[in-house]
């Protein structure tokens, strides 16, 4: 189906091009641009841009300076100084929100967005979007992790059980490398395995407004017990480097990028598999993982033709053709749907292991930059804990810090309702008023049938009474006037239904949908 859509789109584009005569007049003779890509695809990218220069139907020519900048560093540099940053750059998904907030990503308009949406898998699409707007091009869909192991140490039948693996490692005096203590990215795997979530919501500008996090729930405690088993083993190693195999590791949990290295070190002894399960109170839990993408971004600018030209280039560099080249040369797992169907891609052992892990993995989505630092210390805390209460305390502490992130920002507006028990702290029970460009705040909510359908707008954690009934200027017919029975200035809906509430800074407009 998706293939069909992309075909149709391509045809439409072709017709459109033919209609305007193919070449756009406004493009300059050539554009000097800086492209930041990881060192290993530097040469390939140069060739690809060359191909683009020779084949694109608009006659766009680029004169590129290609710099080897690894993905994480690229994001750091862009945030430090957007002005001096690369015009086109690659970055890992977890940096998306940060880059968006620094306004280092140009929006993908119309055809660009449509093509991305049509040709890539759902996860990578979600990774490149904020709200409904695309800000980046999916480059890979392989940013996840799985298990590499040494077949000479680990018997095939043990690879499904964490406990058996730990026992094998301890017996052989070899290390089980799983970077739980220094990386939240790996740490979260156990929590996802027991069904915990940490879901973050951004507004259109990439500002985080809401989080639903259940790491301190009973399921979280189970995950903590699983982590405890591993981190308290003397043969746990907090590392995700495949070269650990050279220094006494038998198992390393890492991503596809280490496949070649692991293959070179272990040769035929290399085994790859999805992550194992752990058992708590007789129940088995398969360890989860993050599933993410690498992305390519275009820097904003004020020359409309230059921006368009760069988008065409980025579109090409992340196309089916280029993704396949990167897969063939460097083993990068494509996000392009057509590429994913190819036999070569399907049969790649590393990508196969990643695929096996797929059912247990969680799309990375957008995550607050501070979360990585906050979650990072959970494993350290678990290691120090002596009993169950200690484990729970570690998780509670984590959640406190998350809450701190949001109470810090007390300019946000929340609608709190009587039907949710007047909870102004739990983000899953409040309604967030999304800020708009014109300075207003908008919320669309369902008011359920209940005896008292009242509520009002407050800042997080507070009980202000200055944004309620008295401030409703339009739509007063939809709410009840309780007079003196309404000391808290609540907005009390007359009947249940779907409403849109707009706050312009001084007054409310309420519309029933």
């Amino acid at each position, binding site marked *: 189906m998706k293939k069909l859509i992309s075909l149709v789109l391509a045809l439409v584009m072709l017709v459109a091009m033919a209609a305007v005569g193919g070449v756009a007049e*406004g493009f300059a003779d050539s554009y000097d641009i800086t492209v930041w890509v990881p060192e290993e695809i530097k040469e390939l990218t140069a060739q690809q841009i060359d191909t683009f220069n020779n084949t694109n139907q608009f006659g766009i020519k680029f004169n590129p300076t290609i710099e080897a900048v690894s993905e994480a560093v690229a994001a750091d540099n862009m945030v430090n100084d*957007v002005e001096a940053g690369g015009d086109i750059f690659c970055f890992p998904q977890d940096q998306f929100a940060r880059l968006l907030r620094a306004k280092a990503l140009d*929006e993908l308009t119309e055809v660009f967005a449509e093509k991305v949406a049509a040709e890539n898998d759902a996860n990578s699409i979600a990774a490149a979007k904020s709200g409904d707007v695309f800000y980046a091009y999916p480059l890979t869909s392989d940013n996840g992790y799985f298990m590499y192991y040494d077949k000479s140490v680990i018997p095939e039948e043990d690879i499904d059980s964490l406990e058996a693996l730990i026992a094998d490692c301890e017996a052989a005096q070899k290390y089980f490398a799983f970077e739980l203590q*220094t990386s939240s990215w790996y740490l979260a795997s156990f929590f996802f395995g027991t069904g915990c979530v940490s879901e973050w919501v951004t507004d259109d500008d990439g500002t985080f407004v809401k989080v639903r996090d259940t790491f301190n729930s009973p399921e979280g405690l189970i995950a903590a017990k699983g982590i405890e088993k591993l981190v308290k083993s003397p043969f746990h190693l907090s590392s995700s480097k495949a070269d650990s195999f050279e220094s006494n590791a038998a198992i390393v949990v890492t991503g596809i990028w280490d496949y070649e290295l692991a293959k070179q070190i272990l040769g035929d002894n290399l085994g790859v598999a999805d992550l194992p399960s752990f058992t708590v109170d007789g129940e088995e839990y398969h360890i989860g993982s993050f599933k993410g993408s690498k992305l390519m971004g275009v820097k904003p600018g004020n020359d409309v033709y230059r921006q368009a030209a760069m988008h065409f280039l980025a579109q090409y560099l992340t196309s089916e053709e280029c993704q396949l080249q990167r897969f063939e040369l460097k083993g990068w797992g494509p996000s392009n749907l057509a590429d994913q169907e190819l036999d070569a891609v399907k049969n790649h052992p590393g990508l196969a292991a990643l695929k096996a892990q797929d059912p247990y993995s969680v799309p990375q989505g957008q995550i607050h930059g501070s979360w990585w630092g906050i979650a990072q210390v959970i494993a350290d805390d678990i290691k120090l804990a002596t009993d169950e209460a200690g484990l729970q305390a570690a998780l509670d502490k984590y959640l406190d*810090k998350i809450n701190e992130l949001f109470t810090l920002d007390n300019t946000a507006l929340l609608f709190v309702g009587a039907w949710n028990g007047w909870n102004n702290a739990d983000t899953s029970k409040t309604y967030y008023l999304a800020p708009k460009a014109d300075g207003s705040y908008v919320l669309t909510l369902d008011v359920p049938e209940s005896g008292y359908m009242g509520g009002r707008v407050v800042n997080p954690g507070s009980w202000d009474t200055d944004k309620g009934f008295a401030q409703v200027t339009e739509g007063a017919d939809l709410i009840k006037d309780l007079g003196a029975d309404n000391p808290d200035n609540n907005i009390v809906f007359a009947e249940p239904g779907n409403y849109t509430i707009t706050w312009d800074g001084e007054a409310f407009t309420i519309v029933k949908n």
Partner: protein
Amino acid sequence: MKRYSDLEYLRLSKLQKFLYRLGSFLCSIPVAVWHGIKKLGLAIWGFIKGIGLSVAEVVTTFKYGSKPTRLSYFIMGAGCFAHGQILRGILFLLFEAVFVFYMITTGSYWLSMLPSLGILGPTEEKKLIPELGMSVKTTVYHDNSFKIMLYGVLTIFFIIAFIYTWWVNIRQSKTAEKILASGKKLKSGKDDLRSLVDDSFHKTLLALPMTGIIVFTVMPIVFMMLVAFTNYDGSHNGYSNNLFHWVGLDNFNTMLSWTSNTGAGTQSYAATFGEVLTWTLIWAFFATFTNYFLGMMVAMAINKKGIRFKKGWRTILVMTIAIPQFISLLYVSKMFAKNGLINNFLIDMKWIETALPFFEKASWARVTVILINIWIGIPYLMLTATGILMNIPQDLYESAKIDGASGWQQYSKITLPYMLFVTGPYLLTQFTGNMNNFNVIFLLTGGAPNNPAASNSAGTVGYTDLLITWLFKITTGAESQYYLASVVGIMVFVVVALITLVAYSLLPSIKNEEDFQ
């Protein structure tokens, strides 16, 4: 605390003597701090008074001065021209011209924007490309908060410099008249130039270094302090997303409040700062003194009579200085990893069963970094101590030997006191240097192991993090909280400055600088 007379002091036992000295040291701290503050206060008062007097002088000069002098109030250098000092006159006039030109063209703009740090952020617009039938977003950048702050402050500096020069110009005209009235000759332009390599040679020599220091050390520090009063961070980078603005003392309130925002599990910034500061001081103490004493011992061992290959031993040790730390320390840190060379070797030898937690446990990691720091520090100290030891007058030892002093006595009565006296200031710079020893901690542990309690939304804090590495983490962290880093930077300065102030008023060898010449 009771003060002993010399005689009473001599009668005390060794322990009592030590306790007495320690006590009087501790007692002198508040006094030293008080003296420091008093001095600072007096200096500020003197400065204000000086300005007041100058203003008064300027006013009276205008009332009673001669025509050329009064003309200098408006046209700088007028007095000089009138008195035939053409070179000086030209320089004054040129300076005034440049100043006026700058203020009119750009200076006034920066100055007017300084209070707001910018009004208009970037604007976005979707523009249509007609021939493609599609629109593309364009972004236009406007104000730049950082540049406004930078040039705004530079303009203020420039104005101050101008006022000063203006004042000098008036004074010179006035003194020139006095000199002429007494019948003496004024300095010609040639004389002025000649004095630059003679009487005013120090001005020539200092001109370049001081310009450099002012532009690349003083200015950045001033800006750093100013950032602490803004909300400059990743969300307000002043250019591509949001402009930043002045926020007064808000950041200091956040940093210095002891209550955390949510209570329960998280720790306040102040508590974290205290924790990191404590370790920083412990680290600086051990890093300084282990190196000092061990380095001295190594130097003495190599210098001992009858030890051969002196140069060879030294060269081997000095290799650590020659190889950049980012190479050697990274390698050393890998050696001490859980699966590193050392642990693997010890396990292979069956000396231990499971790996030693060099960088895994707080106390182990702290001891390990101090030990590895000895490896780095001894060569420097060895070189310094070698020279000093050679300088100790040999007859002191000869006479000690005749009196039958043992080796230990010679060391504790001659070598150590001499070394301590001579290297006092050096020790102090070592101490403050170690407090800010970024490389060693960053390359060896990166702050690890994590300190779960102290880490908060500003970033992860580790047990081996020094204030300076913490500052780095805040700066480069996900939120890029420059303003917070700036506050921490100021607080680090306050702490280090207090220590220095106290130490300086206690150390004997600094006060009498001239004694050595």
